[in-house]
């Protein structure tokens, strides 16, 4: 009792109950523990106390508090000796963090009586529960003690949110029963049947939970206590909970508490409300039920709730932190084993109506902080009657220029704030005056470097490229300033004179590859609107010009140098169409990657880095001159994408890899992607810098760019399809500020020739508690950053090492989380993870199985591996998650049934072969390609209709291009594909058809991508979870 008194007062002052976002979160994990306590007798407070105290970490304390909610459920009838229990809890550890939560000491007494929170009917099942609980304990050994402990706990935390919790709890109890019965020994794993049982429960629970406004419950409601005792709410369903199964361990007793389940449910339910509730722990059984595992079937969910807490922040589509809570100290950061950083997507496409507002300051110039150069943003504060403003990053007091002056209202806000988007929106675009130009804004410039050696001729490339370019000429951005040029090469370089006074283009051949010179001083690069007719003529004759070319050599290196000479004055975009291995002149590459023996050795990574330093040097030169390189690679043979791709990597470009290009099947993809590349809005000669407040610093950057100084990213061209990731480090051992601000500034030249600065501002709280960091974690950003780190890792280490490193990070973070909440309770048989990271294990598994990182030599051709790696380095979060957990849809019903049905999009399925029904038809969509899987027992009518040919003849489906045929099935299918493609316009999903049992295509196209299944050398989702669980448990 005494401890209680002392603690409480202390706690109360410590924190404000409601306001701090941090406070609410972590409780869930604990919840599980909480219940345990509750079951037992309230009587033994003393024992309980030691328990609690054991948790040394503040974070843990927090969690405990949270856990308190679970106790609520129990409460019902039995009047507990709340006071006693209280003291136990308060004891020492908890005080600091949670203190605010605690109701005054008096509360406990009264609340008990109070009926449980809103919706839940408190039933008197308690009695029954108790017996059961005890039973399990018996096997353990010292049952009585445990019970006592549990009881004490339950009392401890009657926090604010309790009411909400109460609901979830009941379910857990039932589960307990089941368990206890099941496990006599405690050690036995639960039978699969049981686990399944559990799973359903969890699902149902959420609904009940939702009913409660968990957060709103005032702390006053001592109700938790009541709950505690009382009763267990009869769970309508078998409550077990969460996506995770129950555990079978000896610890059964603990699990019986059920709270964990509740936590899970809550997590699922709350989504948005969960701020205060925090993370939900899940529990996993050894006999995990695959169906109950968490799956991101709804795709990426942007952390919108951050926008609600920080309405002045930019939209998360532009800027996402891996956790929206910055650790306050180095020691706390050291315990956060996942990467801490951000993913920035500065030019993300925005839906109509949400365009980034453009601000022109006119003569006043762009308002920036004198010292740290921060742009004016919604978080700056105006003072001194509006004559000064304080920078939110460095706290310097700046003068407000006369033109920008505006009086402040009574609350200190500027009166014109509503008219000034830069003061009310997190994302704005400033028009930059001439001080921001080192030269006149460049015109959009496109230069095409086309390999015309025999392999390119064979695959019918020119026709498509020429036609596509021609069709895009009218839509190239920046009319009438746009410049264009062409250079073709095989063993010689062919320059094309496009002078506007000519009627036909002139071809000038340079055969000296060692000493490149330009045959003409200008006219190799011309203004498109002036020379339009010549360009048209060139594109018309280009396909026929090299039709009979039998030259097998390809002098890419000299061609790059020549292109560099042509473009170096202006910069622009260089599109390289390469269909064979560069074989002549500087930068020639040799076949490598065929050597099996190198795999698994320390030299393995050398295959994935550029072989010849020429390409890196060239890339550096390109960037210096504002040239961005896009690589289109077509060869079915090895073309050393690792080397070629480095051109794109350091110039802000992109690698398009279309292996085994065949005009018939790939033309649509090439046409679409080339057209998008040419016509999408592009930011030219840009630089990007991310500023952040005192105490933190961005230390490393990952993506396609080149660093021009420690924190300045040079991006010769950047567009809406490229995102960048970066890692944060703390500069001081202790952060002194409460909030850290970030400001992304992208200075660029728009296609219209205007210099602009796009500014995104965001704020994130500084927290002293690890649980809060977990609660605010953003799986999408973490995975995005993690994948980039892993891919960079493969360039200096073995694939295996890169995968293990990721797994290690995952395991460490889960272990840390576990330590936060579980250690004291010896909650053995469960995998506990925060609600915010529930998909993380799955994504990491998927990352390990991704083309860039999977297996070894035989599992993916080297070029495809490297191309996938380059692609993943630029993917925005949403597309990255889509790639890692592709959609699988069953659509045969949509095809067969009426039109109204076909418009409905079908449900996304788990990525497992078990989802595949031989009587059905599925679409697999990973954002880059579609695979249509035809079940073996699918009606032949349907198949013939879709394919437009008779399947009984076993046609070669790999050569088949899916076209629209004149029948209802085909039209409907095309409509569905079209709708899916519209969801992701940044890439054309090439559609391939595969039939069940058609090996090896089925295996390579689909089966190996069903990431939840076990394939050679990799584990299935269930095994993976168990593996992670085991590792996170071993210390």
């Amino acid at each position, binding site marked *: 009792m005494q401890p209680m008194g002392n603690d409480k007062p202390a706690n109360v002052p410590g924190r404000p109950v409601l306001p701090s976002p941090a406070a609410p979160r972590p409780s869930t994990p604990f919840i599980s523990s909480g219940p345990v306590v509750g079951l037992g007798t309230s009587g033994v407070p003393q024992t309980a106390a030691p328990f609690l105290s054991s948790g040394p970490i503040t974070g843990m304390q927090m969690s405990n508090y949270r856990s308190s909610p679970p106790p609520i459920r129990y409460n019902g009838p039995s009047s507990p000796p709340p006071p006693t229990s209280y003291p136990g809890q308060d004891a020492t550890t908890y005080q600091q963090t949670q203190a605010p939560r605690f109701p005054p000491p008096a509360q406990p007494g009264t609340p008990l009586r109070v009926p449980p929170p809103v919706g839940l009917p408190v039933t008197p099942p308690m009695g029954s529960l108790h017996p059961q609980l005890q039973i399990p304990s018996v096997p353990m050994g010292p049952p009585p003690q445990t019970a006592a402990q549990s009881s004490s706990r339950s009392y401890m935390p009657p926090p604010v949110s309790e009411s909400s919790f109460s609901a979830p709890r009941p379910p857990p109890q039932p589960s307990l029963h089941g368990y206890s019965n099941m496990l006599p020994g405690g050690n036995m794993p639960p039978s699969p049947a049981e686990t399944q049982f559990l799973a359903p429960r969890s699902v149902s629970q959420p609904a009940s939970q939702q009913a409660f406004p968990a957060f709103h419950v005032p702390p006053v409601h001592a109700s938790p206590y009541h709950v505690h005792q009382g009763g267990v709410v009869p769970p309508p369903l078998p409550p077990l909970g969460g996506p995770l199964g129950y555990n079978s361990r000896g610890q059964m007793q603990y699990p019986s508490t059920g709270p964990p389940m509740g936590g899970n449910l809550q997590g699922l339910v709350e989504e948005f409300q969960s701020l205060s509730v925090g993370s939900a722990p899940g529990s996993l059984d050894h006999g995990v039920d695959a169906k109950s595992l968490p799956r991101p079937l709804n795709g990426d969910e942007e952390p919108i709730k951050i926008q609600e807490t920080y309405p002045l922040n930019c939209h998360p589509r532009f800027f996402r932190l891996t956790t929206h809570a910055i650790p306050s100290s180095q020691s706390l950061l050291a315990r956060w084993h996942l990467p801490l950083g951000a993913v920035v997507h500065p030019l993300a496409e925005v839906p109509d109506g949400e365009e980034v507002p453009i601000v022109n300051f006119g003569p006043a110039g762009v308002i920036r902080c004198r010292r740290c150069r921060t742009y004016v943003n919604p978080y700056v504060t105006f003072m001194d009657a509006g004559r000064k403003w304080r920078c939110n990053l460095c706290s310097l007091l700046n003068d407000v220029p006369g033109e920008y002056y505006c009086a402040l209202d009574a609350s200190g806000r500027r009166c014109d704030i509503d008219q000034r988007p830069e003061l009310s929106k997190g994302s704005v675009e400033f028009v930059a005056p001439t001080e921001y130009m080192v030269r006149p804004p460049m015109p959009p410039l496109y230069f095409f470097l086309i390999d015309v050696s025999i392999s390119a001729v064979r695959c019918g490339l020119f026709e498509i490229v020429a036609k596509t370019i021609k069709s895009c000429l009218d839509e190239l951005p920046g009319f009438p300033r746009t410049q264009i040029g062409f250079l073709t090469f095989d063993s010689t370089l062919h320059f094309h004179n496009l002078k506007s006074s000519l009627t036909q283009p002139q071809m000038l051949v340079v055969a000296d590859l060692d000493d490149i010179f330009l045959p003409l001083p200008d006219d190799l690069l011309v203004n498109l609107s002036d020379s339009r007719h010549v360009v048209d003529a060139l594109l018309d004759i280009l396909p026929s010009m090299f039709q009979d070319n039998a030259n097998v050599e390809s002098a890419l290196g000299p061609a790059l140098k020549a292109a560099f000479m042509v473009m170096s004055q202006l910069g622009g975009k260089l599109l390289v169409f390469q269909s064979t291995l560069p074989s002549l002149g500087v930068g020639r590459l040799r076949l490598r990657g065929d050597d099996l023996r190198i795999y698994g050795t320390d030299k393995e990574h050398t295959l994935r880095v550029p072989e010849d*330093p020429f390409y890196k040097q060239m*890339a550096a030169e390109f960037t210096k001159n504002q040239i961005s390189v896009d690589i289109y690679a077509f060869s079915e043979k090895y073309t050393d994408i690792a080397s070629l791709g480095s051109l794109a990597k350091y110039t802000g470009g992109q690698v398009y890899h279309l292996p085994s290009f065949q005009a018939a099947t790939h033309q649509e993809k090439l046409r679409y992607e080339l057209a998008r590349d040419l016509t999408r809005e592009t930011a030219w000669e840009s630089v990007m810098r991310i500023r952040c407040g005192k105490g933190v610093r961005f230390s490393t950057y990952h993506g396609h760019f080149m660093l021009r*100084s*420690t924190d300045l990213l040079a991006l010769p061209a950047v567009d809406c399809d490229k995102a960048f990731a970066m890692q944060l480090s703390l500069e001081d051992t202790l952060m002194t500020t409460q909030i850290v601000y970030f400001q992304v500034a992208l200075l660029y030249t728009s296609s219209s020739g205007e210099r602009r600065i796009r500014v995104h501002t965001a704020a994130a709280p500084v927290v002293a508690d690890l649980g809060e960091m977990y609660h605010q974690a953003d799986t999408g950003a973490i995975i995005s950053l993690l994948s980039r780190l892993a891919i960079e890792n493969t360039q200096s280490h073995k694939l295996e090492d890169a995968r293990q490193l990721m797994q290690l990070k995952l395991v460490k973070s889960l272990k840390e989380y576990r330590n936060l909440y579980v250690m004291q309770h010896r909650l053995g048989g469960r995998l506990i993870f925060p609600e915010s990271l529930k998909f993380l294990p799955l994504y990491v598994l998927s990352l390990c199985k991704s083309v860039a990182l999977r297996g070894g030599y035989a599992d993916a051709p080297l070029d495809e591996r490297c191309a996938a790696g380059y692609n993943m380095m630029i993917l925005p979060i949403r597309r990255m998650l889509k790639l890692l957990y592709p959609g699988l849809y069953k659509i045969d019903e949509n095809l067969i049934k009426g039109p109204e049905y076909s418009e409905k999009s079908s449900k996304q399925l788990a990525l497992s072969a078990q989802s595949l029904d031989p009587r059905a038809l599925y679409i697999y969509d990973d954002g880059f390609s579609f695979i249509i899987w035809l079940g073996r027992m699918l009606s032949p009518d349907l198949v013939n209709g879709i394919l437009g040919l008779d399947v009984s003849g076993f046609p070669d489906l790999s050569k088949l291009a899916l076209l629209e045929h004149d029948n209802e099935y085909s039209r409907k299918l095309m409509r569905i594909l079209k709708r899916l493609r519209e969801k992701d316009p940044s890439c054309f999903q090439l559609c391939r058809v595969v039939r069940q049992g058609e090996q090896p295509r089925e295996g390579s196209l689909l089966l190996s991508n069903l990431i939840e299944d076990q394939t050679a050398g990799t584990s299935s989702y269930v095994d993976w979870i168990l593996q992670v669980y085991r590792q996170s448990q071993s210390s």
Partner: protein
Amino acid sequence: MAWELLLWLYAFASVIALIALTAYQLINLSDLEFDYINPYDSSSRINAVVVPEFMVQGILCTSFLLTWHWFPFLIMAPITYYHVNLFMNRRHLIDVTEIFRLLNGEKKYRIIKLSIYFSIFVIVIYRLVMSAVLLLTDEGFGSLESGIF
């Protein structure tokens, strides 16, 4: 004896050159770190002196070997080996595209090298003075000559 003095004079000049070259590289790297210089200039300046440094170092090392000065040779040998290794793997030049990522490592590497050069410098001065004194006195001060240095 005059040859001995010449050798040490040569060694003295070489070590000074090595120290100067390494310091120059370090200065360039720290300039880069503080954004006084862009990565292109920085890396091209550094790369321009890397090979000369390797050559000076290598020649000095061989000259110690050829004149049977075991102790200085053994001190120099690991550096020589390391240099040869870098050169053979074509990793001796700074990669301008990755320079910021490698900045800390490169600085550390050069600081370590600089400190080794300084210790060699001390030895060389000692031997230089020693041989000069011996030559000037022209006496049998052989007993002064320590066997180690």
